[in-house]
């Protein structure tokens, strides 16, 4: 499939020239085309922020909902029609800040969706405030003395909660991002792909070259099936120690998805909208209230 199929004619793109988001958009289109997943099959779900606008630039079904809440409708969509491929695209503020509670519990719920987080360690749309992943001492118009809070470690949290697929890539490495995205989308269950992505306007610290210097690709010596190994890798790079690893950190096999756990799909895979009300059964239920 040609990635051109996802091209939105006349899209008025609101991203700054040189934004890392363009690279991610390109990688996502490529990954979907490689997997032969056409626009009709796809639902892209997002919240608010510059990252949340991505679905508007990729031809598909979209649900651009509220700030921080995207995983909830994404879950509702997947569970109502498991035939659809549901991809949540959010930013670090949306997913790890406003949506933190949903992030945790969606991991626990394990719907078969892919959660892509465009992580630039800063708020773009609201013009340069700290995000949950901003590194310490990062100065902003709001954090005038620099960030003093511990940066949120989404990968460590996800691994600890038993997320079934956890990965991180760097937007500038498109082939690697495409490869990881394809695996994440194909993975059955919840998958998190956190993508480092420089904000060229509001983050003058974590630039393309900074990410290049502060990351490394994990090689074959990393075993993603070992939770404790995955967690060790996820802790690297934080607190200014060492570099942030890139690649697939953790894969949990054999875990049932949210949809698979529901009785409604045990025998029958029909999407919910095609299911009728059984009035006979309802009459039986009401009549059962006649006797003890």
């Amino acid at each position, binding site marked *: 499939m040609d990635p051109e199929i996802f091209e939105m004619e006349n899209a008025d793109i609101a991203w700054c020239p040189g934004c890392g988001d363009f690279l991610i958009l390109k990688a996502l289109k490529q990954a979907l085309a490689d997997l032969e997943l056409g626009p009709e099959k796809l639902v892209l779900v997002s919240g608010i922020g510059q990252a949340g606008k991505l*679905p508007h630039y990729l031809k598909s079904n979209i*649900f651009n909902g509220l700030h921080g*809440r995207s995983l*909830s*409708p994404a879950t*509702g969509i997947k*569970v*109502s029609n498991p035939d659809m491929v549901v991809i949540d695209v959010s930013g670090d503020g949306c997913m790890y800040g406003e949506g933190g509670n949903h992030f945790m519990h969606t991991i626990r719920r394990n719907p078969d969706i892919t959660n892509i987080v465009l992580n630039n360690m800063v708020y773009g749309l609201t013009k340069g405030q700290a995000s949950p992943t901003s590194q310490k001492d990062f100065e902003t118009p709001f954090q005038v003395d620099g960030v003093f809070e511990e940066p949120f470690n989404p990968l460590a949290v996800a691994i600890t909660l038993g997320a079934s697929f956890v990965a991180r890539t760097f937007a500038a490495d498109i082939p690697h991002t495409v490869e990881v995205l394809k695996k994440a989308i194909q993975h059955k269950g919840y998958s998190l792909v956190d993508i480092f992505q420089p904000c060229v306007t509001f983050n003058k610290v974590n630039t393309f070259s900074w990410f290049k210097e502060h990351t490394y690709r994990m090689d074959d010596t990393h075993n993603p099936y070992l939770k404790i190994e995955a967690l060790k890798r996820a802790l690297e790079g934080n607190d200014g120690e060492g570099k942030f690893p890139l690649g697939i950190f953790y894969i949990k096999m054999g875990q049932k998805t949210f949809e698979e756990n529901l009785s409604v799909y045990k025998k029958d895979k029909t999407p919910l909208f095609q299911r009728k009300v059984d009035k006979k059964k309802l009459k039986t239920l009401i009549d059962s209230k006649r006797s003890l």
Partner: protein
Amino acid sequence: MLVKPMSKIKLEEDVSLVLCGEAGQGIQSVENIMVQALKMGGYHVFSTKEYMSRVRGGQNSTQIRASSKRVKAYRDRIDILVALSKGAIPHLEKRITGNTLILGDEEVLQDLDENHYNLLKAPFISKAKKLGGLIFSNVIAAGALSCIMGVDKDIFDELITLLFASKGEKILEKDLKAGVSGYDIGKKLLDSGRISIKIEKNPAISNEILINGTQAVGSGCISGGCKFISAYPMTPSSPLQVFMAENASEFEMVFEQAEDEIAALNMALGASYAGARAMTATSGSGFALMQEAVGLAGMIETPVVIYIAQRPGPAVGLPTRTAQEDLNLALYSGPGEFPRIIFAPGNFKDALELSHKSFNLADKYQIPVFILSDQYLADIYYNLPSLDIENLDVEDYLVETEADYKRYLLTPDGISPRGIPGHGKGLVCADSDEHDEEGHITEDLDLRTLMVDKRLKKMDKIRKEAVPGEFFSTLNSSQYKTLIMGWGSTYWPLKEALVEMDNDDLALLHLKQLYPLSSQVGELIKKAKKSVMFENNAQGQMAHLLQMETGLKIDHKVLKYNGMPFSVEEILIVLETLEEE
């Protein structure tokens, strides 16, 4: 009050039994046993409970009315009070009169003055202790009352077996023994000659259905095609959540307990976007958390049904009590301007039919529809011949999309054909930003105005098909002077009071669609010399809404907001005072 000690009570036509004890003494189980036993015994029954938000201690009570006529409303009157704790008497002091016969153990009654109270000793607790624990006192009390009411012992035993079989053979055996003790006590009480009950029984009643308000709403949701419900536990909406969860498998629904109310409504909107008829259920502060997503429903024009079982606020308020305080919250919830519908059923038939209708209307107009209930309506039980679902059909408003599909196509009535992803050739784009017809972000300010108008235009049709209120007058005449009004759960108390008044000057208008209002409402008020609104809130929220909608001012507001429902007696006092004016 001063009563003649050892006075005799004679009950004809209608009896009000109240059982009161501490949380953990199984008052709830007695309610379950008694309503079933009495219905099976051929009485019309009604029950309502009031309880404290605690697991142990405090005082909980349940009222059970048994009658030869249909009874469906809370009354203050207590004919027989079963006191299972010392605290029961002070707890119910305001409702106890010289005509109330108080049954209880020596230890419960010993400090009470026989010149003030009509007391009769009954060893519920002491017998329970002999059986192995205080916990059996509830079944003993239920047995005694069933015996007094002439309920066949076999029916009682069958009930006990059904209720306690799951708890293991040993416990069941003891509960059956507790029933025997109860019936023994009942016989002795009857032999004392101080209780005489002559209420006509009708065996046909035993075949009627016995349900609570929650089950009526839940049946309506199922018949309305609900396929998805996500919610966060909160009293008094939890019973509906339980009902839907229990029936999820049988009726092919997804039930999910969300991590919070915010997720609950957002998840429901995702499900609805994907074509599943979806709902959430909540109360007070829980709904406050959902408001952001109510705005989302308005903006993305995605149907959803929101069940709010009201309780007194603000904040945590009185978690287990009743109120009608969240009308304003439902009416104004969510930022911006968009259409909505608010229903407030007052009886089980309306609870079924309006809940059903909520799903059809939500889909038809692509809006949030609210079902306002409250603790009182959710928890009351009464028997009725049936719930008729014959004509309750799911109206399908979904379209199969074409390749050039536009989710927010501008149409004369504001309703765009609604497609869903994966059903047709088109793409379905929903956007919480202001959007163009395709559903993509726009900041074209002319288009913005068109989109606001498009959304609000739907109100014209919604208004035209607003459900009228139920009008009732004793003589069915329109020549009334005073129009009594209420909404939601005040239906039966108001109606029972009005029937009892039997006064041609009075008429009742019960509102079941609160917003938008049917044009009938204004017309009926104009015909009256005086209008009176009963509400379980402190500010007269419905009276204000009515004035806003019709320009008519309600003359008298009768407001109760202590957490208890209006009793028939309270309403009678107000109506009698009005008559004198």
